[in-house]
């Protein structure tokens, strides 16, 4: 954005050459490590590549995509991806915001909350999935199971029945990433100007009005960023679900990401798995495009 040289042409071209030199290694690496494999993925989505039946391998045209269109398991996984992403991201934002507003009111000891909030974020999702599968949700052993029965409710087979399993994997993801939203909102709240609040207080605006008309609009950039970042991560969520349920029972928690993985690496049908991954890639691009447009449109109108 900022540039040093003014009108001097020599200095300018020197600067440009230097800039190219500095960026070339990174861009070359990205080209080789990301773009090339992606091109390979698109290519293989038009092939039959089945390690279980290699004699069938060859060009397949649009066969994989046509198969996808008629594949109810594919549409099921798309639906699950939508439910998983929308519910976990909105819960992260709402709970994170609520907790941030609460903690902002506490005069001392905010640092304890910050430390605690860091813990889930730094844990490996696969470990989080394993902890929940064993220590929290396992029947006759897990803590949640114990609490539920202690409260007098029926025992629930959390990871063994379709709906509870879906609720569980959404809850696990929300548990791990709500602290992220919380920390971002807490930092944003702390950086808000205080004078608007005083003006509002003089105007006798109540707490709810202050939140709705002042805090929320000021936090909008932070909210939009959190939604974008978390939606991307949620669409590509893998390790925690894989560790907790493996996509099961049956296909009850098999989001598109897992379906593409299992088709490739368990059924060894790499051609079809590639087509599924390409469709996830397209969905991710469309969602991020829409969210980014939302962000710029609002930013331009808001300020």
């Amino acid at each position: 954005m900022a540039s040093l040289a003014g009108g001097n042409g020599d200095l300018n071209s020197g600067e440009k050459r230097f800039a190219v030199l500095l960026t070339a290694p990174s861009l070359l690496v990205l080209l080789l490590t990301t773009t090339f494999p992606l091109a390979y993925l698109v290519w293989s989505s038009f092939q039959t590549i089945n390690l279980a039946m290699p004699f069938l391998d060859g060009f397949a045209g649009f066969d994989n995509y046509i198969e996808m269109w008629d594949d109810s398991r594919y549409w099921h996984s798309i639906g699950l991806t939508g439910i998983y992403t929308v519910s976990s991201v909105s819960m992260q934002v709402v709970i994170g915001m609520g907790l941030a507003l609460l903690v902002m009111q506490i005069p001392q000891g905010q640092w304890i909350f910050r430390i605690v909030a860091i813990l889930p974020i730094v844990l490996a999702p696969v470990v989080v999935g394993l902890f929940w599968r064993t220590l929290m949700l396992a029947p006759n052993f897990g803590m949640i199971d114990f609490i539920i029965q202690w409260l007098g409710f029926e025992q629930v087979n959390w990871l063994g029945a379709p709906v509870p399993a879906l609720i569980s994997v959404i809850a696990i993801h929300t548990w791990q990433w709500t602290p992220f939203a919380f920390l971002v909102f807490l930092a944003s709240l702390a950086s808000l100007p205080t004078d608007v609040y005083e003006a509002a207080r003089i105007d006798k605006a109540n707490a709810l009005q202050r939140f709705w008309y002042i805090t929320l609009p000021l936090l909008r950039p932070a909210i939009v960023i959190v939604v974008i970042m978390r939606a991307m991560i949620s669409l590509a969520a893998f390790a925690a679900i894989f560790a907790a349920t493996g996509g099961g029972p049956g296909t009850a928690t098999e989001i598109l990401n897992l379906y593409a993985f299992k088709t490739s690496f368990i059924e060894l049908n790499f051609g079809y798995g590639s087509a599924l991954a390409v469709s996830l890639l397209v969905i991710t691009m469309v969602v991020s495009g829409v969210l980014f447009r939302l962000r710029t449109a609002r930013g331009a109108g808001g300020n």
Partner: protein
Amino acid sequence: MLVSAASLLLLVWVFPLLWAILVSLKSENEVLAYPPNLIFEPIAQNYKDALFGDFSIVPSLVTSTIVAVSTTFLTIVLAVPAAYAFARLRLPAKKTLGFYTLATQMVPPVGLVIPYFLILNRVNWLDTYQGMIIVYLTFSLPFAIWLMVSYMEDIPLEMEEAALLDKASRLQTLWHIIIPQVRGGIAVTVIFVFLNAWNEFLFAVQLGGNTVRPVTVAMYNFVSVEQTLWAKLAAAALIAMLPVVIIGIAAQKQIVKGLTVGAVKGGGRR
């Protein structure tokens, strides 16, 4: 009232970890007691087994360290100069290249693990360190460039101008003026890249093997093989997560800053 409500929520996040610590100190028989015993004689046997037993996680800890440290080093060496050019210099097609870098960050990992499996298989690089580190660059490099750009943009412009008037070469400017200014940003980037590399699972489980088996995969295998040895699992997992938890607590301020660097001033950014 306020404090107790907040503390209750706090408990939701601490509890699973505290519970894991408790379980890791129990014998396997004690673990299966239901309802769970809160009072018991703590033992260190699970930790001894996790470190020195038949399924020792020490080799995996070494593997994770090699992969994470190499990935972090390569990423920083590549990302810092690139971020400087993106943030501060005239670069041809800057907008397009910037968008390209951002776009590579959004590629879902499953879209890469499939082609990488086929490619690395063909060149016999499955289950090798070089293969794994190359794959890890796909998520660490775009992220690191993006994060470093926001730190580079914060350097006051006068610093560079003064240096250029002294006819210092551009490379010297970068090395002696810019890099010391963004040391904090580099530290934050190192932390994030290391954490992400240490915690990675999808690539590791499919592109690794007996030679390259990071801790995340070792944990997963442990549950598949030893279905019910949960006290040992808890001990092993806590050891495996100790480095990232220590980094998380020690660098809590930097991590929060890294998380929020885009979000808090986000309004003004492209």
